[in-house]
C-alpha cells in the first residue's frame, strides 16, 4: 500500500538496513573511482527495473543438459526466442534487507556503506565511463512518480540520499534528446547563436550560485553544489553532438497523450523503450535505465485481463490459484517487454563498429524483492543479457547459494571493464561472482 510518510529517519538513513550496515569507510590516497582506461568490457549499460518481486515456482528456468529451458506458461517463457542470450541468476540475496523499501533502496546501491557511498550502479558506472557523453546517464521512467520521490519510487542515487529522478513523459524526453540539441552536422568549434546565448545564461547563473553559496551555512551548501553539478551537465548536454543522421537517429517523435493514465502504461513503455534505444543509437549516452512503475506498483494490468492492482496480485498466496495466475500473466507481460527491448537493440547496427547495438550492450534486469508474498529479499530474480562486447558468457542458468548482491554489483562493474573491488556495503561481500564473470 502506498506509504506516503517515510519519516525523517527513513529518509536520511534508509531505515533498518542503514542502521545495521553503516561501516566506517575511508579512502586512501588511491583514486576512489575504478579505473576504466583501456577497459575491456561492454560499451554500454542498460538497467531495467520491474516491480514487486516474483513467485519463484513460476519464474525458475528448468535445467536441461548443460543449459536450461523456459517452461510453458512460466514467467520467463516469453524470452524463449532469445534464451541463448540470457544469463538467469537464481540465488542472489540482498543480505540483511527485506521488504519493498529496503529492497528498492539496496537493489542498485548495495547499501549506503562502502567506497561507492550509496551511489547506484548506473550512476557509478556513468561516473567512470559516461563523462564525455551528452548525458553521462539517462534515467527513463514509466509512471514512476505519482507518489512523489521516495525510497519506494526511486532506484538511482548519485550518492546516499540523493535520488536521481527519471523522465516519465515520452514527449518531454523526446524534446530533451532532440529538442534543444545542436543542429546536425554543426561544428562544435563554431556553436550556433542559440547555444551561445544558453551558455551565457549558464555562466551567469553559475556565478550567482557560487556567490550565494559563500553566504550559506555549511549544511545548506550541498544544495547549491548539486545545482552547480546539474548546470555542468546541462552545459555538456547542450553542447554535445546529438548524433543526428546515424542509423535510428532521430526516431519518430512519440505520438502519445495521457502518459499518467493507467491504461496507457503499455504505450508509454513502448515509447520510452524506443527513445532509450534511440539515445544509445545516437551516441547520446552509454548508461541508461528504464524503470517500470515502482515498488508497490498499483497499476491495474487491464491489458493482461486482470482487475487487481499489480502489488495486490504480487501478494496472492499459492492457494489462490486464480490470483497467482493473474500475477504470472502480468509478469509474463514484463518478460515480453524485455524481449521487445532486446529486439529493438538487435535491430540497429553498432555505430562505427561490428554487429548490433545489442552486441556491445550489457542489459541488466533487476527486481527489488525475492518472493513478494514474504516481503523478503532472498533469491531476488536477476537476468543479464546483451553481447557486452564479448564480456558476458550467455545462455546460462546460474544457481547461486545465497550470494550477496554486492558481489553481483561488482561483477556487473567487471563486465563493464571496471576494477573496483567492492560495491556498496563491503561487510556483506566483496569481489565479483566467479559464476557471472567467468
Amino acid at each position, binding site marked *: 500500500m502506498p506509504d506516503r510518510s517515510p519519516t525523517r529517519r527513513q529518509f536520511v538513513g534508509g531505515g533498518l538496513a542503514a542502521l*545495521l550496515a553503516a561501516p566506517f569507510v575511508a579512502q586512501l590516497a588511491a583514486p576512489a573511482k575504478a579505473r576504466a582506461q583501456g577497459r575491456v568490457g561492454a560499451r554500454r549499460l542498460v538497467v531495467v527495473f520491474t516491480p514487486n518481486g516474483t513467485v519463484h515456482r513460476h519464474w525458475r528456468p528448468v535445467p536441461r543438459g548443460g543449459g536450461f529451458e523456459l517452461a510453458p506458461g512460466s514467467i520467463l517463457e516469453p524470452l524463449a526466442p532469445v534464451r541463448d542470450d540470457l544469463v538467469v541468476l537464481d540465488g542472489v540475496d540482498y543480505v540483511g534487507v527485506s521488504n519493498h523499501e529496503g529492497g528498492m533502496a539496496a537493489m542498485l546501491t548495495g547499501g549506503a556503506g562502502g567506497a561507492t557511498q550509496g551511489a547506484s550502479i548506473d550512476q557509478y558506472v556513468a561516473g567512470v565511463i559516461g563523462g564525455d557523453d551528452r548525458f553521462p546517464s539517462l534515467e527513463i521512467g514509466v509512471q514512476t512518480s505519482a507518489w512523489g520521490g521516495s525510497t519506494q519510487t526511486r532506484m538511482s542515487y548519485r550518492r546516499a540520499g540523493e535520488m536521481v529522478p527519471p523522465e516519465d513523459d515520452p514527449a518531454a524526453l523526446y524534446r530533451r534528446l532532440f529538442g534543444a540539441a545542436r543542429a546536425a552536422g554543426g561544428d562544435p568549434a563554431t556553436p550556433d547563436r542559440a547555444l551561445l546565448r544558453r551558455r551565457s545564461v549558464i555562466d551567469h547563473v553559475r556565478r550567482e550560485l557560487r556567490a550565494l553559496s559563500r553566504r550559506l*551555512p555549511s549544511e545548506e551548501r550541498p*544544495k547549491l553544489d548539486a*545545482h552547480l553539478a546539474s548546470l555542468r551537465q546541462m552545459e555538456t548536454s547542450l553542447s554535445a553532438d546529438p548524433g543526428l543522421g546515424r542509423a535510428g537517429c532521430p526516431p519518430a517523435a512519440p505520438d502519445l497523450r495521457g502518459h499518467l493514465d493507467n491504461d496507457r502504461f503499455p504505450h508509454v513503455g513502448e515509447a520510452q523503450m524506443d527513445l532509450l534505444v534511440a539515445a544509445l543509437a545516437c551516441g547520446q549516452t552509454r548508461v541508461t535505465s528504464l524503470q517500470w512503475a515502482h515498488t508497490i506498483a*498499483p497499476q491495474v494490468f487491464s491489458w493482461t485481463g486482470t482487475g487487481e492492482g499489480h502489488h495486490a496480485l504480487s501478494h*496472492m498466496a499459492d492457494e489462490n490459484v486464480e490470483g497467482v495466475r493473474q500475477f504470472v500473466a502480468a509478469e509474463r507481460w514484463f518478460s515480453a517487454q524485455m524481449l521487445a527491448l532486446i529486439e529493438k537493440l538487435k535491430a540497429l547496427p553498432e555505430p562505427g563498429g561490428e554487429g548490433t547495438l545489442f552486441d556491445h550492450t550489457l542489459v541488466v534486469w533487476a527486481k527489488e524483492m525475492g518472493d513478494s*508474498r514474504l*516481503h*523478503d529479499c532472498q533469491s531476488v530474480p536477476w537476468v543479464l543479457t546483451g553481447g557486452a562486447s564479448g564480456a558476458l558468457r550467455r545462455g546460462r542458468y546460474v544457481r547461486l547459494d545465497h550470494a550477496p548482491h554486492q558481489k553481483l554489483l561488482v561483477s556487473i562493474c567487471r563486465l563493464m571493464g571496471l576494477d573496483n573491488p567492492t560495491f556498496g556495503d563491503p561487510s556483506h561481500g566483496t569481489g*565479483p561472482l566467479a559464476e557471472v564473470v567467468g
Partner: protein
Amino acid sequence: MKRLPLLAALLAACGQTEPGTDPGGLPPRDGADGAPVAGDHEPAPCADERDWFVRELYRPVLAVQCIGCHTEGGTAAATRLNLVPETEPGWEEASFAAVRRVVRAELAGEPLLLLKPSLRHPDGHTGGRLVPEGSAAYGALEAFVERVRDPACAPDVEDGVVACDDVRPGRPLLRRLTPDEYDRTVRDLFGLEADYGDGFAADPVVDGFRNRAEALTVSPLLADQLRVAAEDVARRVAASPAALGACATRPDAGEACVRDLLGGFGTRVFRRPLTSEEINEYAALYAADGGTFAAGLELVLSAMLQSPHFLYRAELGDADGGLSPYETATALAYLVTGTTPDDALLAAAAAGALDAADGREAQARRLMAQPAHRERVRRFVTAWLDLDRLAAVPKDTATFPELTPAVREAMRRELDAFVDHAVFSGTGRLPELLTAGYTFVDDTLATFYGLTDDGRVTPQAGERAGLLTLGATLTVHSRPNDTSPIHRGKLVRERLLCQAIPPPPPGVVADPPPFVPGQRVRDRYAAHSQVQPCEGCHRLMDPIGFAFERFDGVGRWRDDVEDAAGEIVGSASSDGAVEGAAALGAHLGASAEVHDCFAREAFRFAYGIGEDAGTRCMLRAVQDEFRAGDLAVEALFVALARSPQLERRVVDEAPPPDPAPDAGPPDAGPAPDAAPPLPDLVVADTVESTWETGACHQVTVRNDGPSAVAWAVELDVGGTLTQHWECQPAGEAGVVTFRGAEWNADLAPGGETGFGFCVSR
C-alpha cells in the same frame, strides 16, 4: 560466506552465543555494534554510562526492534517509552532518560522494560513478544536495569519533560520553489497561464509532503526542465513586454530600459531589490548579446528565471539570525498565498512593518482575504490527505466502469468546493471539516452518487463526515477493485492521529483478503488482524477502516452493508467505538489529539521542516494558539505567521572553515609509533574474496585480556590497500598497522570488533 562460520565459532567459544533468538532477522554482525551477547555486560566505570547505553542497548536492540513504533509519530508514541532516532539532535540524552523511566516504572517489583517486550506484562505488548526471556537482547535489557538500579552508578541526568519557556525558530534555509509555487509565481509575475510544474521531476516525499526544504534540490533533469520553462516564459513575455514597464514598448528601448526594468520589475522577480552589482551584471548580459531589444530582454528574463535568487526562497537571516524584511515578506506570502509577494507586501517590508508579530498578522489577514489564500488552503488539505493522486489512482474499469475521468474531475471540484465552504463560509473550524453533513456535487457527480439534486446537498442524516467521506478521499484510499479498511484506517492513523505505521514485517504472507460474495468485510480482514505479528499494526488500522464500509471503493453510498462498526484503539486520547463514518468524523473532530496533529501537519507544510528538539517548542506554541483560537483554520495561519520562524533563525554555527585542504594524505609508510599487537588480542583474518589482481579481507579482533585496550593489529596485506572500513590503517602496502575507527578503537575485556580491507596486487 566464510566469515559467518568463523564468527559463530568465536562466539561459541566464549559460550555466549544465542542463535535464533533474534526475531528481527538481524544478520550476524561483528564489531562493537553487533548483536549483544548474554552475559557480556560486565559493569564498566560509571563515567561511560551513556556510552554503554548507546553501544550495548540503543544501537543493537532499541534502534533495531523498538524505535519503529516507540518514537514520536510512531504507533507507540503515547507510551512511556519514547525513543529519539540518531538523526535528531539530543537523541542520546532523551532516549537514555526515556529508557530509565521505563526501568523505574515497575509492576510487582519488575521493571516494565523487562515485562513488556517479553510479553509477561498482564496488559500484553502491542508489538508482541519481541524480546524473549533468555535472549541476547533480553540480557542487554537486564544489564541496563542493574546499572540503573545501582546507586553507585546513577548518572546525573534528570528525567523529565523539556519545558517550553524558550520558543526557538528553526535553522537558516534555502527553499526551492515547488512545482506548484513555480507556476503560481510565474502566473502572478507575468499574467501568463503556466502549467510547467506538472512536468517537473517529482520531488521527494518527506513526512507525507513534497515541500521539505532539505529535499528540494535541482537534479540534472530538473535543471533542464527549468531551463525549458524559463526559455518559454521569457519568449512569451519578451514578445509583449508592456507589463514589465512602460519603457519596454518604446521603439528606442535599449540597455537603459533594461536597467529600469531590473530596478523596478526585477524587485518582484527576486522578491527584493536587486543590488547595483546585480543590475550591472544583468545589464552586461543584455549588452553582450548584441541582438534586438526583445532578444536581449528575453535573455535577461531567461537568466533571472534560472537564477538561484528566483528559484530558491531565502530564509537565511543575517549574522545574528534576523531575517531580512524581504525574506520575511517572501516567507509570509508563500505561507499564506502560495505565491510571490504582491506589491503591497513588498512595500510593507520596505517600511519595516513586518518586523513585529502584529505587523505580520495584519499583512497575513489582508492576504487571507484574497482568492490565493483559498487556493493555498485547498492545496494544504489536498497534500495533507494525499488527494493529488485522485486523477491517476489506478482503478479496475470492470469493477467501476462509472468512474470516468469526468467523474474524477468532478470529485476534484467537490473537494475544492467543500474546503472553500467549510473554511471560508462555514464555521471555519477544523471540526466542520471532519463532521460536515453536506457536500457539493454537480450534475456529473450527483448522477454518480445517485443523488437527485446538485449544488450543496445534504444526503441522509448521519451519512457524511466532511473530508473523510468526499469522493476523492474514499477513491484514493481504496483498492482498485474494492474498498480498503486498511488504507482508510491508515489514512486516519497517520494523517489525523500523526502516528506512523511501520511496514509489514518480512516473512509474512500479505495476501490481501480475497473477495467472497456475501462474506462480511470484517471477517475477511479478521485473519490478519488477529494473527501475530500482523495483529500489532492491523488492529490500529482495520477497525478504523470498517467505519467507512458504507461507502464503496469510489465513494458511493451503499445500503447493503451489515454494519459499519469501527473502533480506535492504541491512541493517546482518541480511543473509542463508533458506528459509521459520520460518527468517526464526529469522534475525531472532538479529539484534542487530532487538533494537535492537524496543527503539526500545517506546521510541516507551512515551514518545509520537520519538528525536532530545536523547534518542538515552536510547534507546541502553534498548537496552543490553534486551540486558543477555537480550532479555526484562520487562527492556525495567523499563529504560523506570527511565529518566530518568520522573524529570525537559530545561529549557532562557528564561522565556516576555510576550504583549505585537510591535514594531507595518510602516512605513506608505517607510522613511527606503530605498536606491536597486544598479546591478549585474538585476531582472525579471513580472505573474503580474491581475484586475479586483488583480494578483500575481513578481520575479527577480540580482547581476551583483563583490561580494556586501544587495539592495534599488524598484518602483511600482500599488496596495496585500495579500501578499508571500520579501521584506520597506518601505511598502504606491505606490513600495515590497523587501529580502530573512532567508534571501535577501544575494546573492553571480552569485547570483539571487526574491520576489513581490500588490496590490489
